[in-house]
């Protein structure tokens, strides 16, 4: 899991595609547009085109195939519950129920893989309450350090045979091990607090306005947005009767 987070973070910060050079705000708008379209449109034609477009965005941004596959398949289980309820002679309603979450999920992975997290969280923190916005930044930073700690804990448990014990004992031991991580998290939070005090924390983590700096590459984001709009006019008539 830490590899996944680290991979996404590295890709977002050091990728060289045209999407990496476009502004965070434009990409956020495009993501909102595509998710809104996916949720609102009753047309399977539009959804299929959006799905192909989202895949193309991910491929052109060099998102690892493993991540794309996870993003595409994760919503399937929940969707299948509704697909079974919609089973009938036609195929278009189940297709819509499967394609909608896949479009949203793939677009989200494209966004987070092409946008460094400070640029991504800064606009979000401006619409969230102050404590929640700050918590967003700090939690993301905490994930990396604590994921490594949790993975070492997990390895230690397995190597020392804790996972070979009866299930009842297994989870109790796991709880005690998680307790060590909680203490580690508490100690880390104390050090972070001291660092924030020393660096003059004034009550809000600075979310830079870098996300609002538009670039020439935003033209391609605009093209992708217009592409979605065109899909509505051209393929919007393809819908279940």
């Amino acid at each position: 899991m830490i590899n996944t987070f680290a991979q996404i973070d590295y890709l977002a910060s050091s990728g060289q595609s045209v999407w990496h050079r476009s502004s965070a705000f434009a990409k956020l708008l495009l993501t909102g547009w595509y998710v809104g379209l996916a949720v609102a449109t009753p047309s399977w034609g539009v959804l299929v085109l959006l799905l192909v477009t989202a895949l193309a965005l991910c491929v052109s941004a060099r998102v690892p195939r493993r991540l794309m596959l996870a993003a595409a398949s994760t919503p399937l289980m929940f969707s299948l519950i509704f697909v079974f309820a919609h089973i009938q002679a036609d195929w278009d309603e189940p297709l819509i129920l499967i394609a909608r979450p896949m479009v949203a999920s793939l677009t989200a992975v494209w966004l987070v893989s092409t946008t460094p997290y400070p640029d991504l969280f800064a606009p979000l923190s401006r619409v969230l309450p102050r404590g929640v916005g700050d918590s967003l930044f700090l939690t993301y930073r905490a994930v990396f350090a604590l994921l490594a700690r949790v993975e070492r804990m997990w390895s230690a448990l397995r190597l020392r045979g804790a996972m070979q014990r009866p299930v009842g004992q297994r989870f109790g031991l796991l709880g005690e091990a998680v307790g060590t991580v909680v203490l580690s998290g508490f100690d880390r939070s104390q050090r972070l607090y001291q660092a924030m005090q020393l660096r003059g924390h004034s009550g809000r983590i600075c979310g830079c306005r870098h996300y609002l700096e538009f670039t020439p590459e935003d033209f391609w984001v605009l093209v992708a947005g217009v592409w979605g709009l065109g899909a509505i006019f051209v393929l919007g008539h393809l819908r279940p009767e």
Partner: protein
Amino acid sequence: MSHLHIPDGILPPLFWVSGLVITALLLFWSSSANRRSGPRELAFQSSLGGIMLAVMALPVPITAFDYCMTLAGPVGVLLGAGAAFQVSFVVTLILALLGQGGFTVVGLNSLVLGLGAMAARPLYLALAGGLGPARAMAAATALSQLMSTVCWSAILVASVRLTPGVAGEHAVAESLFRIWQQTGAAIVIPILALAVALESLLGYGLGHFLARVRPDLLPGPTRPSSASDRPAAPPAASGSP
């Protein structure tokens, strides 16, 4: 099951719009309740959010399948209602950005995870005096898991019934629902009971560890500690029961 995140485009708009409104209200309430807490509490809250994300990624083997924990109950006990809901929202939002769960349904997913966490501390405080911290933590975790799963199931059942063109109108879907009613409970209820039991064991182990090593991190009256020169734990979030 409480962190089987609902994807975009599946639920009727009535559900996810309501979820967003309720979540927004709870976020502003929790911010108001926690306005006296400072960066020290914020850092601890964020560390626990990071641990939640890390632990969710750990598949614990149980016979032929893996189970992923949430840690929502223990986090609720340690932080209190307001801060626990904020953590649940931040965790859900980060997961949505990774394609695990949708954007439009981030409110509903936060409510599923957060309502259970919010209910944990009151029960812990009511039981800790009589049962001791470890058992009280287990009970609070069980309640949290139950609430989250019931909430998730209620959303699922209600939305399947309210979605146009669902069971009742198609012969295949009708028979599927009949099969579900006859056998679904026999499958789901044991799985639910198992999930609650496993999370409770985890909570027991965590409570047992913290009660021995850092009782000051647990809410309520703390036992006298031999290490009296340890730094004080962050005070319980203001406004939390």
